């Protein structure tokens, strides 16, 4: 620990080596992802209970979701995970411009996802398929169809907030990359953002079949 080579600027004072700092960040991030899964776990649990109680109503109500738009969004998000991973790979190879390009592409995919979601939401608002007491749509057979839409909006809404959070994180990492803060020796924040972004993707991969592909 005597020379600057072993204690570079990005190594915080309380860590003795770069590897220790990186491993700590990784462990912390995985624990954080675990809490995210548990956060959504409550909603998955509510979904399971109400679907078990009202299987027919869930089946009838899900038919009003647009499978094509859902599929499109699934493809878009999986692509964004790929570009995120590629951005990290570029950084590992010290290709800063490549990393910047892939990060921007990831942001673009995320924005496309939200735009598609916006059209889906506004169509439902228009039909009155709103949560709870604002629900006015009459076309679904079965008791209390508003519950399906309540859960739909809660799950996709919370997921949407996570997409926004992920986009902010990617934007922050992008700014740092442009300013040349990362190299193949140190790119931990980008890797952590990548982990988070993959989680956002994975949650959607569960939401999509549960909501759009019932029956």
């Amino acid at each position: 620990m005597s020379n600057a080579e072993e204690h570079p600027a990005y190594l915080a004072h309380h860590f003795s080596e770069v590897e220790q700092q990186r491993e700590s960040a990784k462990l912390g991030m995985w624990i954080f992802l675990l809490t995210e899964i548990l956060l959504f776990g409550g909603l998955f649990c509510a979904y399971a209970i109400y679907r078990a109680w009202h299987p027919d109503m869930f089946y009838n109500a899900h038919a009003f979701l647009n499978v094509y738009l859902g599929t499109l969004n699934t493809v878009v998000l999986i692509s964004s995970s790929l570009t995120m991973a590629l951005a990290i790979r570029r950084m590992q190879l010290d290709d800063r411009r490549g990393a910047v390009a892939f990060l921007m592409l990831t942001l673009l995919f995320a924005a496309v996802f939200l735009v598609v979601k916006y059209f889906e939401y506004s169509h439902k608002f228009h039909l009155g398929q709103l949560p709870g007491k604002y629900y006015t749509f009459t076309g679904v057979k079965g008791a209390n169809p508003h519950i399906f839409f309540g859960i739909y909006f809660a799950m996709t809404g919370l997921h949407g907030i996570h997409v926004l959070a992920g986009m902010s994180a990617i934007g922050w990492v992008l700014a740092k990359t442009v300013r040349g803060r990362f190299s193949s020796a140190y790119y931990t924040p980008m890797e952590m953002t990548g982990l988070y972004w993959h989680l956002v993707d994975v949650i959607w991969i569960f939401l999509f079949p549960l909501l759009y592909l019932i029956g």
Partner: protein
Amino acid sequence: MVEAVSGNYLRQPGGIKSWLVTLDHKRIGILYLAGIMTFFIFGGLLAMLIRLELLTPGKELVDANTYNRIFTLHGAVMIFLFIIPSIPASLGNFVLPQMIGAKDVAFPRLNLTSWYIYIVGSLFALYSIVAGSIDTGWTFYTPYSTQSTTSVVSMTLGVFILGFSSILTGLNFIVTIHKLRAPGMTWYQMPLFVWALYATAVIQVLATPVLAITLVLLILERVFGIGIFDPAMGGDPVLYQHFFWFYSHPAVYIMILPGMGIISELISTFSHKKIFGYKAIAFSSLAIAFISFLVWGHHMFTSGQSELAAALFSFLTFLVGIPSGIKVFNWLATMYKGRISLETPMLYALSFLFLFSIGGLTGIFLGALAVDVHLHDTYFIVAHFHYVMMGGTLMAFLGGLHFWWPKMFGRLYSEYWGRIAVALVFIGFNLTFFTQFILGGRGMPRRYYTYPPEYQTLHDLSTVGSWILAAGFIITFAYLIHSLIAGRKASGNPWGSLTLEWTSPSPPPTENFVGTPRLTHGPYDYDTVQIERGQV
């Protein structure tokens, strides 16, 4: 006056601002300590009001609606703003890195962020008090919480935010314990307080997100009427109780486990004897954390869950008694033939043993199905959880605070007044809450504004007890504050303890240790290491 120890963490340049932007875990611990003590005083004053109002069956000070708000606030403030963050975030933050020989926690910035999140959450809670307060009880049960005209949304939002503070502290501690132990410190050489904080952190990380989503659903229920907890709209209010207690029962162990960790330190240090059954104590913390996730249904024995579920939850609840019992017997065995010295921290530890045993055993009564039907929602349960939370956690917190006070501030408090305060707290506590066991057994329901005249004697005894308790706390505050100004200077190791934090000067330097600390002995090797008290 204190001579300026070079690098002493309390005496860094920059004044107040240097505290508000500090990344030093010790300073953040002190910031938390200031926050939680403020809310402890506030919650305590509310408790005094409750007891004062119950002096007679009629109106004493406040009307029934105000009374509902007061007991709700007492519960919410004490649980979410005091007891959950109390030991981990203040004492834990201060000593955890020192105990494992680290310079700081793994993520110092996140640590400071947790404190600010705590402050923001508490501002929401305070706002809800100003904006009409809340009268649902701290559990926010539906359907009442969706109909009450009080400011439920801002309070639940506050609790939601506080949850994040708790999660981030837990996350930080887990990573710190995994990655930042001093070279050569294996898991089995960690002090037991660290094990307890680890088990606590696991619960914080796994349970709190579920509370977060529950409160989000409650807010959605109130704002959009999504109806999943509303039977009129095809929902189920008991589902709310399941969600709520899936967090809030493990949360009870977030409150007690760190306290148990402190007791292990105190009993070994003040018996000057190696801790008995180190591994048993360490693993019983993890066992409690594990079982804590499987017992939430015992809050719903009378809420209409299936008989099979109730029987299973009852059985699982009894299981918690095993690791708790293991701890108590190991502490007793540690004291056996030890050289026990009865200083203030040890007196708190002994109070803990006595009160926690009563609290734990009455928990077994309540876990038994048939008995619970009679005792559910009576003063018996109020007494039970005060014996565990206050008789357990608060005694441990005070014991720990007295134990590490010289380390934190470099000053010794008055041992004489310390002992008087322990005696008052112990007597006052038992008078306040033992009477409530009897009241509950006779059928006094919790949260009631009034009661039949034949209960008055016991109610009055309980209220007098609360005054004695308050006197004990006032004395404690007085001599602790006095010690900061005029206390004798503390040496590096005033108790002759063997854990690492006592190897540095009091108060410690900003970097905790001079160089990387080297382990020369285990945390409890009182049988092989001769240590002089007061040595630096």
